[in-house]
């Protein structure tokens, strides 16, 4: 069937709500408004205000309330409007959700799912354009997911809800209108492994989320130039599935990491370090990274585009590692 990323997310929520009465959705404007990005549109009418729960603008309180409800037998899906606002709930996410299980000696798992929008590219300026999923991937105790396809938008939520521990799902704001065919019986997917989205033999391009389409576009460009790129979609940012990208690097001998986060201290740095640690002698060229320029994201279109990874900059980095620049 024809669908969109947004509709696939909605169907995943609907499916989870039907499967398990402990599941409910809570967040700012998820009900009457239908969700800031219209993901939950229509769900209030279907499930009612108890289970599609509009909250005040109190990120710390409603994320903490999600933690408490999860501790007490419910299976909440908390929607934070965007990752930018998640900073107001960082205390709850790090000091409670990610920590309570260990600090209690295993007594208090927190089966909470938090969804949030991430990323830049829509001229929303600095405070609405962060890509901070790499920060969250730093934290032991969390699972961090980044659905980049219709299948993952539809399929990641249910296994996330089945996980006894907190799961963060990052939805890139540029993906909601992504449309295409999704199998009628599409359902839960594996949330532990990376996926090879394009097979190739000359260079491994490693990315996730909103950068996947740009990376695939770069790969098409490279193909026209005689360079056969393999594209890895990480899917799960924590715990990282190193095996998939290391195995790819072992046969391509070259790697470029594409990450919309800032370069310094980023997820791309972690991936490059793992390649250096585990596959150093397989490399024919240094690992390259294509990241967001280290500036707050500017409003003006030409400046924003210049700040972000683009197919051209990705392809240029790949050419450099393949041909030496």
């Amino acid at each position, binding site marked *: 069937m024809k669908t969109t990323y947004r509709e696939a997310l909605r169907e995943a929520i609907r499916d989870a709500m039907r499967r398990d009465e402990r599941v*409910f959705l809570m967040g700012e404007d998820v009900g009457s408004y239908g969700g800031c990005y219209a993901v939950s549109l229509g769900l209030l009418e279907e499930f009612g205000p*108890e289970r599609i729960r509009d*909250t*005040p603008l*109190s990120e*710390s*309180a*409603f*994320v*903490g*309330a*999600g*933690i*408490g*409800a*999860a*501790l*007490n*037998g*419910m299976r*909440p899906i908390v929607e934070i409007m965007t990752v930018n606002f998640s900073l107001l709930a960082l*205390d*709850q996410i790090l*000091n*409670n959700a990610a920590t*309570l*299980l*260990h*600090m*209690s*000696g*295993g*007594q*208090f*798992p927190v089966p909470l799912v938090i969804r949030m929008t991430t990323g830049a590219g829509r001229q929303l300026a600095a405070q609405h354009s962060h890509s901070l999923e790499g920060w969250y991937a730093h934290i*032991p*105790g969390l*699972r961090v997911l980044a659905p980049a396809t219709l299948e993952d938008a539809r399929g990641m939520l249910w*296994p996330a809800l*089945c*996980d*006894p*521990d907190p799961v963060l799902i990052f939805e890139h704001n540029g993906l909601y209108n992504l449309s295409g065919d999704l199998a009628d019986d599409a359902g839960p997917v594996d949330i*532990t492994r990376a996926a090879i989205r394009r097979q190739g033999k000359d260079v491994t391009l490693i990315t996730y989320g909103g950068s996947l389409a740009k990376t695939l576009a770069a790969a098409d460009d490279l193909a026209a130039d005689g360079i056969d790129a393999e594209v890895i979609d990480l899917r799960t940012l924590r715990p990282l599935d190193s095996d998939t990208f290391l195995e790819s690097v072992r046969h391509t001998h070259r790697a470029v990491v594409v990450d919309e986060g800032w370069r310094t201290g980023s997820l791309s740095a972690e991936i490059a370090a793992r390649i250096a640690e585990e596959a150093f002698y397989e490399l024919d060229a240094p690992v390259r990274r294509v990241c967001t320029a280290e500036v707050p994201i500017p409003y003006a279109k030409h400046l924003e585009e210049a700040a972000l990874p683009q197919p051209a900059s990705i392809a240029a980095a790949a050419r450099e590692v393949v041909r030496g620049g």
Partner: protein
Amino acid sequence: MKEHLDLLREMTRIRRFEDRCAELYSAAQIRGFLHLYVGEEAVAVGVVSELDPQDAVVSTYRDHGHALARGVPMDAVMAEMFGKVTGCSRGRGGSMHLFDSGHRFFGGNAIVGGGLPVAVGLALAHAMRGEPRVVACFFGEGAAAEGEFHEALNLAALWRLPVLFCCENNLYAMGTSFAKEHAAPDLALRASSYGLAAWAVDGMDVLAVREAARRATESIRAGGGPCLLELRTFRFRAHSMYDPERYRDKSEVVQWRDRDPIDRLIAAMRPDFTDDDLTALETEVAAEIDHAVAAAEAAEIEPVDGLTRFVTSEVTR
């Protein structure tokens, strides 16, 4: 008389347990931060005495009193102080992070204000299932300056959730006096502005605390929404074992010690409660503490190869 004796026993257990903890800290058998509750026992004991086993408790980093009053075994609490695997958090939490799922004790939270949103969520789950439970959430007056206090009170009142907010006003947020921290001094009034019932209670009088907790929990269980008690109390000892107490005058401490909640209850129980009764009680409590210390000293430690256990749940996906 029986009820009074129970309250006295609980307060005495907490007081003597902590006296011993201070000694053990000086002897370097307990490390880390150690925040003593001495002087505030009437608050925990009075409130918790009105809770049912199915109710829930959320605590702070000054949590020994709440845990013991709630029934977390003293052996497990002391073992936690020693960092032993038999501790109530397997030695991973220490003094500030006592947990016990069996007693629905959701832990000491060491981020000031951090437990309030969690308490709201625990209550939300009860409310969504239609269960007449109460979630007692302890925090200090310092937390009333945190954003999470305001967010949590608003949310709990908005959704009429069964939370009993217990604000332990001991007049000092670490070393910052109440007057230096709060523009408006009436905490109950501040809470009332969110549309919940709130009032101040003499936190040095365990009978008054119990009476207030009874009134509040009855109202909450009946669907009346959250309540807040401002429990006016005082910690007789320093903020932690590192605190030289430069910020307050000793005479203030002496004045408050005259209002010791344990002495006050004993006075109320005279003459029926005799010196012999008191000696018997102290002997009984000392024996419990001796046992807890001996058990903690003898207990095993978690093997280091278990270091990364409990970061994620130990279940097969």
